[in-house]
């Protein structure tokens, strides 16, 4: 079962925007859609490492700010002709708070 950790209030993220969470496994971008869904993805574009948290959020997609690759935030999969996938993390909203997969606290290890 996934254990969650509270990372902040939903209202700390603008609608159609994102904020960063620093973790032992690198930066994670936490997105909020226009209709208040949240998604957590690695903040590194598989193309050339662009910061996805700075991309334009449209529907449940985000466009990388560097070369406009578009990712489905549900799966992390690149859309259209581009091939690649960003890692996604379990995340949820509970009573206005955002809860993120707590395993991110630990550094990725051999196991």
């Amino acid at each position, binding site marked *: 079962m996934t254990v969650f*950790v509270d*990372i*902040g209030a939903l209202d*700390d*993220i*603008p*609608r*159609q*925007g994102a*904020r*960063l*969470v*620093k*973790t*032992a496994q690198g*930066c994670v971008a*936490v997105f909020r*859609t*226009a*209709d*208040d*869904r*949240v*998604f957590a993805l690695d903040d590194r574009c598989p193309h*050339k490492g662009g*910061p996805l948290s*700075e*991309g*334009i*959020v*449209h*529907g*449940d*997609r985000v*466009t990388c*700010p*560097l070369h*406009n690759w*578009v990712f489905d*935030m*549900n*799966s992390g999969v690149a859309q259209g002709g581009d091939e690649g996938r960003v890692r*996604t993390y379990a*995340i*949820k*909203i509970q*009573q206005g708070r955002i809860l*993120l997969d707590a395993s*991110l*606290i*630990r*550094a990725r290890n051999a196991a």
Partner: protein
Amino acid sequence: MKKKLVVIGAGMASGRMLEQIFEAAPDAYEVTLFNAEPRGNYNRLMLSPVLSGEKTYDDIVTHDADWYAAHGVDCRFGEPVVKIDRKNRVVYSNKGGAPYDALVIATGSAPFIIPVVGKDLPGVVAYRDLEDTQAMMATAGKDAVVIGGGLLGLEAAAGMAAQGARVTVIHLMGHLMERQLDPAAGYLLQKDLERRGITVHCKGATKAILGHDRAEAVLLEDGTVYPADLVCMAVGIRPETRIAVDAHLEVERGIVVDDALRTSDPHIFALGECVEHRKQLFGLVAPLYDQAKVLAKTLLGEAAEFVPVQTATKLKVTGCDLFSAGDFAEGPGREDIVFRDPGRGIYKRLVLEDNRIIGVVMYGETGDGSWFYGLMKEATDISDMRDTLIFGPAFQGGAALDPMAAVAALPLEAEICGCNGVSKGTILNAVAGGACTLDAMRACTKASASCGTCTGLVQQVMALALGGEVVEAAAGMCKCTDHSHDDVRRLIRTMGLKSIPAVMQELGWKTVGGCHSCRPALNYYLLAEYPLDYQDDRQSRFVNERNHANIQKDGTYSVVPRMWGGVTTPAELRAIADAAEKYNVPMVKVTGGQRIDLLGVRKEDLPHMWNDLNAAGMVSGAAYSKGLRTVKTCVGKEFCRVGTQDSTGLGIKLEKLMWGSWTPHKLKLGVSGCPRNCAEATCKDIGVVCVDSGYNISIGGAAGMEVKETVALASTPSEDEAIQIILAVTQLYRENARYLDRIWKWMGRVGLDWIKAQVVEDLENRQALVARFEISQSVYRHDPWAELSTPSETPKWGPLADLTLEAAE
């Protein structure tokens, strides 16, 4: 002997519970019913039709005196319970006590009152009971303000408007009913309310209620004041738990109950909006009726369990048809199906997960709501009907969406060609008169014969008249729409569309939130068209414009303060040097735009650095914007031995007038003091080369992948006139060019002659353009750095959380 049942609160939940008990076991209990309101149970939901005058109080009474008498209920109405003595099992009002074997708390909710100055003035009400309703019914011909644009607030607003009040709704969020509706549906709702005369102010935070002896006006944080003889606060409710807290029952946000609706005391039960069940609160009646059934059984000694069901919402405002159900709030793995019919103001959206409907939003046509709701509750697999699902149960076969719906819906007098003032009606008449080609149309009406940007629209209107026969049209601006840039722009103007959701709805966008290509364009078109009304949408901007700094390939940023006309001072240089050291800037570089670039700044340091630079009197150089970048100058006649005019001075004047403005693409200016042209003015978007007789203005230069030399626009002996012409051509470019077209590209489409006619020859038009530029600048001639580095904004530049600091378990 009958057992004694005492009930606190004669509301909708306890009323339904009593019905169930009396029906199943009429002789089980002797009931005493306390109620704070001086009356028994009525249908609270129906207060809104009472308010709007569609019903009377008598129509909405659920249990009358006869009903209570027939069931032997001891009614203590107008007597709030003030104390529960759990040890002796007695409850007390101020008039006396009543012993119980079983006690039910059903006190409902208390309205939430925001703690602002003036909240206790007479004339400030909530919307909960008959007294509130009656106060609001007395507002005919007066000013009323409703704080809160949720379900309750909007019913209050519509009701008072129906009574003849002038009503304003103030809502904190960006769109109405944000908990039930997405922005598109919220937009349609706002439009419907505005149509019935209600003013809607979104993103409005109430600062105070003003007045001496009673409420007179409402003041917002942004300084707006709305007159108000009555203020209705409808910002939310919280469970009414005070007597339970005093009695030391377990209370979290509500009174905690188990599945049988028992509280932490085995003799005390609770139901309705005052309870919290498995961490959940309730605000709609459907689950409360289920609770009533369960509690009736519990009290009669039968086993029963309360299981909450999902609820759907309808707004009870006659003429506003909306439906919202399900969960839009969390979880990956979701997809949308969207349908929009701009002509009829319809919007429908289904949210799917694993081929099942988990959310429904509908506006304008909600007939299929219960069908979708059924599919959602049953968790029906919809993969087979997915293609036609959105059209509802009656549909088989696939309706084509109509890309011309927006054009079809335009009124006959809508202006299509702005240059020549040709309306839709004129074009239709010309087609009827035989003008079936674009050339013929241009010959007989002049429509699209001048700047040509309306060509696509003219073609669509002609196609409409010709029965859908397509007169070849320009390509859509992106995959989200079939309308071209020019069409979208023109329709924003003719249809008065003032927000991105408005454009997407009325023009039939095919996606939910657009894409990275149309959103920045729409944001620009809207702010250029409605500088005073439109609120710039940062989330629709590319990273550099959103963060007011250029992102570098390693995710750091560069900071370029403005140096007016390339002129600086020792004090400014010192401040820049200090900032460079303080923030460990890895590189300090002089740009080609005659200013200094600090490269490699971390995002979280940006607001701090801006603060330091602001303190030294510097503002953002907008080196990142589709807007005015720099005005490059040479030293001119003040120092140069061959200079003819004060080129530096003119450059500074221009930069001070134009800074902060947004344009379709970047805009760079240059002013040289003589034809030697040291400021390289003839490869800028707008260049001035000074000569003995005055100023030669040329436009359309560039020095990037494309190198372009400017072409002459005008010459004038007067510096003032030179400035006027430059501002006018800038405004014409802002109003007319496609997003991401530089001046040279735009000029290629509309022609230099047309531009000349507008800004050089037509003096009146030139002045009008300058006036419109100035209106826009009254909003945008402001430093974004100062706005985004305030103490409340600064933390937003850092990470939301830092989990590397948390101890690993």
